[in-house]
């Protein structure tokens, strides 16, 4: 009955929360100045999304529609607080780096959005898979942004991964290039918007290329014509 391939495609590509729905832009843009921060927030968001989707789906028959929203918000807030405490306890420096953006996961529209739009109407299994895929889709966008910005702005890749993975991960750091004049813009907020813009453009370009391959681009012609005149 449930089409897992469609759910996966939805979360990872077609309806990607990061680059298509453009949800949760605030943390997305704010913490992606390094790969480790991006992965940290991506994982935290994914866990919350997975847990909240499962819980919401489990209680969907027991919650009447009048109190649905407050119950969902409470469920999400509880999970986020738990994640925050756990990160505080076990990945302390990453917790300090991410700062306010961990508690702010509560306000990430993806989570309440998936709870309301999907989990509240589907089986636990489908909801869990949807949470995982949406979380993964969001996390991958974070990861790409973080990697691009770190390489451009700091000239490194996977620096300070030990904050997340423990001391052994110190050796993961790759120095891509060394220069006194790095592209500082990339790690500053405007860089986030620029890289994000290119990412969305690339996604749209790929979609268009795929579309035009499946059927000849007859439809496009009148639009082009109008623009030229």
């Amino acid at each position, binding site marked *: 009955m449930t089409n897992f391939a469609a759910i996966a495609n939805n979360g990872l590509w077609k309806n990607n929360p990061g680059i298509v729905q453009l949800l949760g832009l605030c943390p997305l843009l704010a913490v992606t100045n390094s790969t480790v921060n991006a992965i940290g927030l991506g994982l935290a968001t994914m866990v919350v999304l997975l847990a909240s989707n499962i819980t919401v789906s489990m209680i969907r028959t027991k919650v009447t529609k009048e*109190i649905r929203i407050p119950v969902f918000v409470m469920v999400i807030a509880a*999970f986020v607080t738990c994640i925050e405490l756990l990160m505080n306890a076990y990945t302390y420096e990453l917790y300090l780096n991410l700062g306010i953006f961990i508690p702010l996961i509560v306000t990430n529209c993806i989570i309440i959005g998936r709870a309301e739009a999907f989990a509240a109407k589907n089986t636990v299994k489908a909801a869990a898979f949807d949470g995982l895929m949406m979380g993964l889709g969001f996390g991958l966008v974070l990861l790409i942004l973080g990697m691009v910005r770190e390489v451009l702005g700091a000239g490194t890749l996977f620096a300070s991964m030990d904050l997340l993975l423990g001391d052994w991960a110190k050796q993961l750091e790759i120095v891509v290039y060394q220069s006194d004049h790095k592209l500082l813009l990339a790690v500053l907020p405007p860089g986030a918007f620029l890289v994000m813009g290119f990412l969305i453009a690339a996604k749209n370009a790929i979609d268009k290329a795929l579309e035009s391959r499946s059927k000849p681009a007859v439809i496009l012609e009148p639009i082009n014509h109008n623009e030229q005149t």
Partner: protein
Amino acid sequence: MKSSSTSPRSIMKLALSLASFGFVATSLVVATHWATKEAIEQQRKQQLIKGFSQVLPQNMLDQNLLERCILLEQDPLLGSDQKKSVWLAKEQDKVVAMVFQTTAPDGYNGDIDLLLASDLTQKVLDVRVISHKETPGLGDRIDIRKSDWIKSFSEKSLHESNDSRWAVTKDGGMFDGFTGATITPRAVVKAVKNTLVYQGMHQSEILEQAYNCGDDSMLKDDQDD
């Protein structure tokens, strides 16, 4: 259907249902809080000890340093409207140095939190930036992970409270500035200077005070930052 959802009875039912969900959610948070409480405290202590070991020489570090903590009255010289702590470092049972928590309130992007160790002649042993939001690549050279600049404070002392050498070179002082970021080093120099002035004014007072922020109270203070 519609009328039943607004009757007092069904409202009561909804409220009870909402309350029970609230209870379950809160219990989950409480349980996690209990499970992680010790690890979190440990992490905070670890962080402080890590800071101490960077600003104090090895022979002044001992097990009870964290306990010898005094909560200071809020003072503009310490750069914050929050109470700051000072820890007393001992050598052979005599207090030989103080470690101040202090803040440079006028950084380019807000507060810069510092840890400053100085001996009883108000000579700086070492300073470290604990947290800051300065511009990456420009102002963040105050961070020991980015450059050694912060070490230029060690062995320096204040001769009088308006010692003109305590400024960046651009303002005729003895501390190098950064190209592209004047505000950040200026703020740090000022904060270190102010803390030394504070120490000069309050040192005897501090030495007489009883320790009042070992462990728990200190941790709470830390949380406000």
